C-alpha cells in the first residue's frame, strides 16, 4: 500500500460458487461439503451440468472442460446461467500450470511428419484463456477476461484482480477463481497442486436478489478478508462460505 494516500478497501458480495475437484462437482446452494484433495482427477461428466447441447465440450482439453464446468456451476449458483442479451460479466482465473496438458497433446501432433499433421482443434486450446472464451460464448459474457499465473498455488490472485475490476466498474459482475489440470507427467514434476476448478461469482453488494454468502474485501494486493476474517487460500474461502450457508 502506498505512503501518503488512503486506499479504500474494495468490497464485493459472493453470490455463487461452483466447483469441480477430485472429490466431485457441486455448487454452494445445493452441496454442503467441499474438498480439493491432492489426488488424481477422476472422470467427470460435464454433460450433467450442461443440459442443452454443447458440442464444443467434446473438443476441449481437460483443463478447459474443468474451467467451463466450474464457471457454469458458479453462474447457476448465482441464478445467472440463463440469458437473452450478452452481459458485461467478466472472468479472471488463476492457475499454476494452465493448459500444459493441451500443449503437450497438441505438440505431439506436430512431431510426426514435421508439422503436416498439426491439429488445429488442439491448437485452439493452447492459450490458457481459451476456455474463458468458451464460457463467454456459452453464457454471453462480454466482460474482462484473462488468466493470472501464480508460482505458488493459493488460487487468490484472480480473486484479487476480479475485485479490482468490480471496484473500477469495469464489469457489472465478475467470476474469479482457479483452474488447474495439473502438470503432465512427462515433465517429471512433483504433484503439488490439487487439480480442479473453483469459481466465485462476485457482485456489487446487494445487487443480486438471492441471499449472498458474505462480503469479500481486499485491503491490499496481498490481503483478502471474508466477512472480516482473513482468507489465506481459496479452499478456506469456500469453507467459510459454506459455513455461512449451514447456519
Amino acid at each position, binding site marked *: *500500500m502506498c505512503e501518503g494516500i488512503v486506499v479504500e478497501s474494495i468490497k464485493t458480495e459472493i453470490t455463487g460458487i461452483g466447483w469441480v475437484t477430485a472429490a466431485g462437482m457441486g455448487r454452494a446452494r445445493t452441496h454442503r461439503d467441499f474438498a480439493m484433495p491432492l489426488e488424481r482427477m477422476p472422470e467427470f461428466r460435464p454433460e450433467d451440468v450442461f443440459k442443452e447441447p454443447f458440442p464444443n465440450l467434446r473438443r476441449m482439453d481437460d483443463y478447459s472442460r474443468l474451467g467451463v464446468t466450474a464457471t457454469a456451476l458458479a453462474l447457476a449458483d448465482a441464478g445467472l446461467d440463463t440469458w437473452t442479451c450478452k452481459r458485461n460479466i467478466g472472468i479472471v482465473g488463476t492457475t*499454476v500450470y494452465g493448459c500444459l496438458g493441451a500443449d503437450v497433446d497438441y505438440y505431439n501432433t506436430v512431431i510426426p511428419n514435421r508439422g503436416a499433421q498439426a491439429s488445429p482443434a488442439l*491448437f485452439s486450446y493452447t*492459450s490458457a484463456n481459451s476456455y474463458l*472464451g468458451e464460457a*463467454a460464448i456459452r453464457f454471453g459474457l462480454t466482460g474482462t477476461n484473462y488468466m493470472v499465473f501464480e508460482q505458488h498455488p493459493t488460487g487468490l490472485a484472480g480473486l484479487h484482480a476480479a475485485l479490482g475490476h468490480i471496484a473500477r466498474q469495469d464489469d457489472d459482475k465478475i467470476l474469479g477463481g482457479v483452474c488447474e489440470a495439473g502438470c503432465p507427467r512427462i515433465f517429471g514434476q512433483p504433484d503439488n497442486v490439487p487439480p480442479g476448478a473453483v469459481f466465485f461469482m462476485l457482485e456489487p453488494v446487494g445487487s443480486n436478489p438471492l441471499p449472498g454468502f458474505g462480503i469479500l474485501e481486499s485491503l491490499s*494486493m496481498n490481503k483478502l478478508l471474508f466477512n472480516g476474517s482473513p482468507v489465506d487460500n481459496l479452499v478456506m474461502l469456500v469453507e467459510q462460505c459454506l459455513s455461512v450457508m449451514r447456519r
Partner: protein
Amino acid sequence: MVHTLLQMDTFHSENQQPRQAVVTDAVLVTALGGDIDTLWRRLMQKGTAIGPISRFPVDQEHYTAGIAAIIDDLKPSRDHSLIKSLLDRLMVQMGPVPSDATLITATLKAGIDNLEAVCRGNPSGFQDIPLSSLAEHISPQIGLKSNGLCISASCASSTIAVAQGAALIESGQAEAVLVCCAEIVSEYAFAGFSSLKALAPAPCQPFDRGRRGLSLGEGAAALLLMPAARAGREGRDRLGTICGWGITNDAAHITAPAKGGHGLAQAIDKALKSAEKKPEEITAICAHGTGTIYNDRMELDAFKHILGPRKRPIFSVKGAIGHTLGAAGGIEIILGLKALATLTIPPTIGFTHPEKGAEGQVSAETQAIANGCLLTTNSGFGGVNAAIILGP
C-alpha cells in the same frame, strides 16, 4: 535509459491527475531493432525483419509459409533457455527500478521451445516452461521484493498487463509497476498457425486488400509505470500517460474475431470512458493489424463504429517485426508513446492496396499526427480484446 523517446516537451503535467499512471522508462527488443531508437529508425526506413526461418525445419510441403521475424543472433542461455536470453537482452537496457515496484509479466507461451524439447525427448530444462518463470528470472536481477503476477490472455496479454499496472497505481495499491513481456518464435506456434491456415506465404500485409495472413515475430518489452506525482517528485522522465483502458470478450468464437468488431468496439468504448476522452481526441491508432483477412476487417469496422467516420492515421508494425503474440501489446504501446512524442507514425510495411475503409487512414508512408491521444488495440484467441488510450 536515455533515448529520444524522452524528449517530450509536449507533456502537460498541470492537467494530470496525481495518481494517473505515467510511463517513466521503456525498453524493447525486436528482430528489426534491439532498442527503441534502432527499431524506430528502421521502421521509418520501411525495413522489415521478416525472412526465411532457420531456427527449426520448415518443410514447404507441410507448412503454408517459411518466414518469420527472428532475432538473428539470439541463442539459448547456458541453461537452454531462449526466453531468458531474450529477457537478459531486454533488462540490460533498463534503468534503475524502484525496489518497491510490483512486477507484472505477460506472455503467451514463455519457454515453449523447452516443451518442444521435452516432447521430443531431448535434453531441456522445465524451469522456463511455466508462464510464471518470467518473473522468477527478472525479479532477482533487479532486486524486487516479490515476483508479482503473470498475465496471459493470448495476443492481448501485455496490453492487459499494462492496463492492470495502471489500475494498481490509480487505486493506490502500487506505487510503481514494472511490466515485462516476451515471446519467441517457435515451431510450436508456427505449426499451429499454419494448421489454421493463418500464416502468410510472404511477409504479412496489414490492411491491404491482398493480405493473406500473419507473419510471426519475436520480441520483448518492459515499461516502468508510476503515479504522475511520484514521477514529478523524483524528477523522472515522463514518456507518456496511460489514460484509460478497456478489456472485453467477443463471446462469439474462440479463434476467429467477431464479425463487425462489436467486442473490440466495446473495449474501445470502455477505454474512452475510463480515460474520460471523446472520440475526436483520438488522433491516431496503433492497430493490432495482423494481416489476416478477418482481423483487419474487424478492426476497421470497430474503429468506425466507435470513433465515427472521421479518418485518422492508423498503422500496424506487424509487417516489419511480425506478430509477437503475448509481447505485441507492450511493444506497440512503446511505439505508440514514441509516435505521440514525435507526432509521427511509421509506415505500415506491406500495405499497397487499401482494404475498403483503410483508404486515407493506413499508409505505406510516414504520417504526421496531431496533438492528442493515441489508441492502441490487440485481440486474440479466446475472443479477448484490449484497448489502451495513451496520452502525452
